[in-house]
Each structure stands twice: as C-alpha cells, then as structure tokens.
C-alpha cells in the first residue's frame, strides 16, 4: 500500500463516488418535479403543487450537498492529478469550465428562482423556472459526461510541442460518439433513481398511513416514470453503450464478461472470473448471447482478453467483472419490480398490495448501487489508461504529492463525509417527517406540532 498512484486513485474514487450520490438524485428528481408541476397546471389540482414543493425541497438539499462535495472534485484535478491536468487541461478544461461557469450558474440561478420566487412569479413563470432547473442540471451532467467520454475515447484534440494536447474542435468534443450513448445511459439511470426514491417515499407514507393522498401521487408518478426509464436504461441506451465498448475498448468489454478466448461469446449471468485459469468458475450463461448483443449474429467471434497483450488488460479484472454484473443484474430487477408495480397500478390494486409496497419502499438504495457500479465499470474498464490510448494512469498523478500526504487527506475526507452524511440524513428525515404539508388524512389524526394546514400556509 505504499504506491502513491494507488492512494491517489482511491482518493478520487472515494470522493467522486460519494459526490455522485447527490447529483444522481438531483438529476433523477428534476424531470419528476417538472412532471408534478405540469400535472398541477394541467389538472388545476393543488395536490400536485404540494407534491412538487415537497420534492423541490429534497432536490434543494441534495443540490447543496452536490455543490459542497463537487468543489473537491474540481480541486483534485489539480491537487492529485496534476500531470494529467497539465497534459489534458487544454481539452477537458473546456467542458469542466463550462460546467463550472455555465450550467452551474444556470442551475443555481433558476433553482433560487424556483425555490424562493413562487409568490412573485405567475404559475406559468414558475413552471418555466422548474424546466430551467431541470435543463440546467441535465446540462451540467452533459459537461461532466463529455469530459469522461473524452478520457474514454479521446477525440477533437491536437498534440502540442510541449507534449500536451489542446482542443481542435469544440463540437467534436461535445458530440463525441462515446458521450452521446454514455450520457443517454447515465441519465436514464439517474431518472430510474429519482423514480425509485419517489416511489419509496410514497410507499412509506402509505404503509405508515401518513399523507396517503400524497403517497399515492408519488407512487403513480414514480412507477410510470420508473417503467419508462428502467426500459430505457436497457435499450437502446445500455445496448448502445455496450457497442461503444465493443468498438473502442474491446479489451474492457472482454474483461467485463471475463471472455478470454476469441470465439463466439456467451453472456455470463453468474459465475466468478478465474483470471489465472483464464476461465469462469461456476458459470451460468446464455450461450453465444454476447455475440448476438454485439453484432446481432449468434456465431460472430468476439475478441477475447488473451488476444490482447497483458499490458493492455484492465488492472482489476475481477472488480470490473463484478461491478458490471451487479449493474446489469440490478437493472434487470428494476425493470421487473417496476413492471409488476405497473400491472398492479393498472389493476388499481397497488395501494393495497402491501408486500409490493414493502419492496418498493426498501428498494430505494438499489439504484444508487447500480449507478455506482456502472461508473466503476466505466472507469475500471478504462484502465490501465487515464486517457484511453494516450496516457497511462501511472503517468497522470501528482508526482510531487507523496503517498503519505494523499493518505492524510483521504482519511480527512472520510471523516468529513461521515459528518456530511449525518447532516444529510438529518435534513431529509426532517422533510419526510414534516411531510408534503398537505393537511389531509384518511383517519383524522391530531395535528402534530410543526405541521401547517393549507390555510396556514399562504
């Protein structure tokens, strides 16, 4: 554990994994908040506006946490990955700066309007600020995905005399073919997260017999969008991302599936990769499934890992394999749970199907795990490169920052993020207990302290 590059990698991995939990939620909730606002406008139903306000508050909390944990990400490009920054800053600085100054200002500007300006804006005006928050957060996401996509599949650059790279085409960078699929796949994954979280809170309210009317709205909107996005995650976006890999990072794809020999490839459902024996232990496979997915031909050959020199192999094949399979497995489960809930909803039985409500309530952490696993797949798959084919990870970290100093700050971040987690849970729990401020209840319960009635609000 004395290798500086390993600590710097852990440092970034830890902070970025933690950070992304928050934007994942905000990007996932943004379209749903707009959907709720739209329903309120369309149906002239005040209940949807209460729901929208409630989720806007959760969105706002998550947004602040995204900002607070996002600043260290930007810093770390310079602090921990200075050689990479010096090499690639001329290209990816563009998208990162756009995120920092453009999308970010847009988002915080309109979030301020959306949260504080309801009384000053017309209903349509307020709706538009909601749409702008949604677009701003998704634009932010695009800038970041385009940055990562350039590291996965570098395009639109030119080498300079001092050995670094500089941008040669702005639109080439933004319209990187890798970025398009990765973004679509990633945003579908975020929307699934938002849908599951909204459904889980709805299920919680129904099961605990609090705010049942609001709970039903959350479940309806959550399940309908959950069905839509859990299908979109798989196809065409997941499929498109898979073919990106087949085209541009065949070694990563082979490692994800632990496919060692070049031949028609099976789709592995379960099993443990045996890297030394170049096989899979305890396999459960769809024969030739991977070949079909890649080329729509069951018998096409897929390049195996053995055909690449070992210096090109991803450095952690087992973790890559598991991360990928966890993502795919959970994605399949999401589709199943949401389709089942959709059927029950259609039959008007979902609100009484307690076992399913329990599943929906307890499922909310799973999309966070699946999205994280997806990002681990992407970033471990990119190894041993930092910029695929151009710069190796061992050449990119800050040589002037010792392993000991990196350990020191990694431990510091762990402590700090523990505090942040407590704060986040406290704030969200407070909103959940407070409820959507909707004074109705099936069983007229005594009004608890702090709960405002409709009349008391405006």
């Amino acid at each position, binding site marked *: 554990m004395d290798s500086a590059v390993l600590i710097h990698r852990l440092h970034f991995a830890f902070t970025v994994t933690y950070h992304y939990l928050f934007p994942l939620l905000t990007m996932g909730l943004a379209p749903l908040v707009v959907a709720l606002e739209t329903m309120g406008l369309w149906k002239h139903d005040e209940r949807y506006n209460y729901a929208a306000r409630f989720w*806007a508050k959760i969105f706002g909390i998550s947004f602040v946490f995204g900002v607070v944990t996002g600043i260290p990400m930007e810093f770390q490009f310079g602090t921990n990955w*200075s*050689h990479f920054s010096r090499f690639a800053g001329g290209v990816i*600085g563009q998208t990162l700066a756009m995120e920092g100054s453009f999308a970010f200002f847009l988002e915080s*500007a309109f979030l301020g309007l959306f949260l504080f300006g309801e009384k000053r804006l017309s209903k349509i005006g307020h709706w538009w600020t909601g749409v702008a928050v949604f677009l701003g957060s998704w634009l932010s996401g695009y800038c970041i995905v385009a940055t990562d996509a350039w590291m996965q599949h570098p395009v639109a650059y030119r080498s300079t005399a001092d050995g670094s790279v500089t941008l*040669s085409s*702005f639109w080439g960078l933004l319209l990187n073919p890798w970025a398009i699929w990765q973004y679509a796949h990633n945003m579908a994954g975020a929307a699934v997260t938002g849908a599951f979280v909204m459904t889980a809170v709805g299920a919680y309210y129904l099961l605990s017999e609090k705010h049942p009317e609001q709970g039903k709205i959350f479940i309806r909107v959550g399940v309908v969008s959950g069905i839509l996005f859990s299908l979109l995650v798989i196809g065409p976006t997941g499929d498109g991302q898979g073919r990106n890999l087949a085209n541009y990072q065949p070694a990563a794809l082979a490692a994800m599936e632990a496919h060692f020999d070049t031949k028609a490839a099976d789709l592995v459902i379960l099993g443990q990769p045996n890297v030394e024996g170049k096989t899979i232990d305890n396999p459960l496979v769809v024969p030739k499934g991977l070949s079909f997915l890649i080329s729509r031909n069951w018998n096409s050959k897929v390049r195996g890992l053995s055909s690449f020199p070992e210096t090109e192999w991803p450095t952690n094949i087992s973790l890559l394999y598991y991360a990928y399979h966890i993502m795919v497995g959970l994605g399949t489960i999401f589709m199943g749970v949401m389709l089942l809930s959709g059927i029950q909803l259609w039959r008007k039985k979902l609100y009484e199907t307690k076992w399913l409500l329990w599943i929906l309530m307890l499922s909310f952490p799973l999309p966070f795990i699946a999205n994280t696993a997806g990002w681990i797949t992407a970033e471990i798959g990119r190894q041993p490169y930092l910029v695929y084919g151009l710069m190796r990870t061992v050449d990119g970290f800050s040589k002037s920052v010792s392993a000991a100093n990196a350990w020191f700050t990694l431990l510091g971040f762990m402590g700090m993020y523990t505090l942040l987690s407590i704060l986040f849970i406290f704030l969200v729990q407070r909103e959940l207990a407070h409820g959507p401020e909707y004074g109705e209840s099936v069983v007229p319960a005594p009004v608890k302290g702090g709960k405002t009635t409709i009349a008391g609000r405006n």
Partner: protein
Amino acid sequence: MGLLWFAIISVMLTAYVVLDGFDLGAGALHLFLGRTDDERRKIIKSIGPVWDGNEVWLLATGGVLYFVFPQLYASSFSGFYLPLMMVLWLLMLRAIGLEFRTHIKDGIWASFFDGIFSLGSLLLAVFYGAALGNVVRGLPLGPDHYFFLPLWTNWNIGPHQGVLDWYTVLSGVVALVALCVHGANYIVVKTDGELNERARKTSLVLTPVLLVLTLVSLLATIAIHPNISANYNTLPIGYAIPVLVFASLIAVFVFQKRRKEVAAFVSGALYLAFMLVGAVYALYPVILPAVDPRYNLTVENSITGSYALQVGLRWWTVAIVIALGYFVFVYRIFRGKVELEDHGGYGD
C-alpha cells in the same frame, strides 16, 4: 488573448473575494457580534440566501483557470496540496455549521454549530490571505514547473520555506481583518437596532487597524521583493492603485461615521478589489512567481491553444450575463434589513 483571459480571471477572482468575503467576515464576527440567539439568527439569515451563490464564483473561477492555464492549475494545486485540502474541509465545515444552525433553533447544539460556522469562516479568511501572500512571495518552482510546500518549517523566508512564514501569516492577518471590516459593514447594512450599532462600532475600530496593517504589509512586500514595483515604474499610472486602496479605506471610516451604510459597504468592497488589482498589476505577466525567476510561470508559457480560448470566450460571455442577471435578481429580492419571522415558506 492572454491578457484578456488574465483580466477575466482576475475579475472573477475579485468578484469571489468581494462576494464571499462579506459572508466569511460576517461568519468570523458571528460569535462576537451576535450576543443573543435572535441576533445570531439575524446574521445567519442575512447571508443565508446568498452564501452558496457567492461560493459558485470560486468554482467558476477554478474552472476557467483550469481551461485557460492548465500548467498553472497543475503546478499550484499540487504544490499547495495541504492548504488547499484544508480550505476544502473548512468550506465544508462552514456549510455544515450554517445548515444545522439554520434548522436548530435553540440549545447547546445551536451554540456548537455557531462555533463551527464562525471558526470555519475565520480560518478560511486567514488561509486565503496566506495563499495570496504565498503567490506574491514566490514559490520554489523547479525546472519541471512543479513544487511542493509543507505547511510550515522555520517560519522564515528562505530556501526551506513553508506555506506559513512570518510574511504569509501577516497576509493572513490582513485578510482576516479586511474581511471582518467587510463583514461588519455588511451586517450594518442588513440589520437594525443593537446589532447594527455594534457592527458599526466594530467597523469603526477595525478600519484604522486595517489601515496600519495594510501599510505594514505593503512595506514588508517591498522589503522581501524589491522588484515588485517594476511594473509600477514602467507604467506609473499603477501608482494610483495604492492611493485608491488607502482612499477607499478612509472612505469606509468616514461613511460609517456619517451612517452612510451602503456607501461604507461599497467602499470596503472597493478596498478589497484595489488590493487584488494592486497585486495583479505587480505580477503581470507572471502568474506564479518562482524563487528562481527562470522558472516563473507566465501567461505565455502556461496558456492553452488559441482555438480553445476563442471558443471559450463565446460561451463564457453568455454564462457571465446569466450569472450577473441572477445576482442582480437575488440581491434585489433580499434587499433591505432582515426580519426574523417563523414562516413555513418554500426556502426556509
């Protein structure tokens, strides 16, 4: 193009210092100025809707710096590794203190988070000043354009210097007092009653102290860095800057005496801006001075390709217009004195 981007980054950095400066200063004075729970809540409420927007300027400045001067970003961020990480932690601690304090109305926990918030703000002000002091003093850049500084060594300027030495600590103290004046001026504008009066008196006491400290640090800078006035001698109009620095500081005092609250606040903001302009004027075209001037990072040897700069200018212009519109809007909505009310509104 290089000069233009150099100016853009300087302006963005100044915007950050002036904007986040008053909420840092208000935070540093929080425990001292706010004697009762109500007063402390007023201080928090006066910066509550704006502090995170102010901090976005730091993020935006960092982003633009990264894309315009990748070499500068790489060298300075890795070299200042430890202090920058501590700045990050302090920013977080401060946010934690603020958020919790907003939601916990009473009891010892409110006091605890008041303390966290105030201490975080105070240390940040010192760190920022020390950081600027480091840049002005010069850094041990090697031929590869990299360096690494420990936090402190023997507190002296010399071959084995640390981030903190007598000069950078002095810069930190100047920054702390400067931001306290700025924060006190802001609280004067935003509050009334006893709190307003106390903040006004604080500003009146601290402004002369700041005047002396500014003079001392100016002399110290000339002492450790005899070449610092080179640009001033080539283009003597620059000598107007130190004059403006002291003039704006005196203006703070005079306006505060006459109870011209907004004018005093604006003068304080101008003082900060002129201080930064003065430093930037002295440094240009060097953006990170090395102890050995051969290894200076300059605009020319750190800037990225011209195509990227041209493209960047287009979207940056759009972004800055949106940002300015937003700031005008937010500060208009929240103009005037803060009132405490227990409403269950949207942004509570």
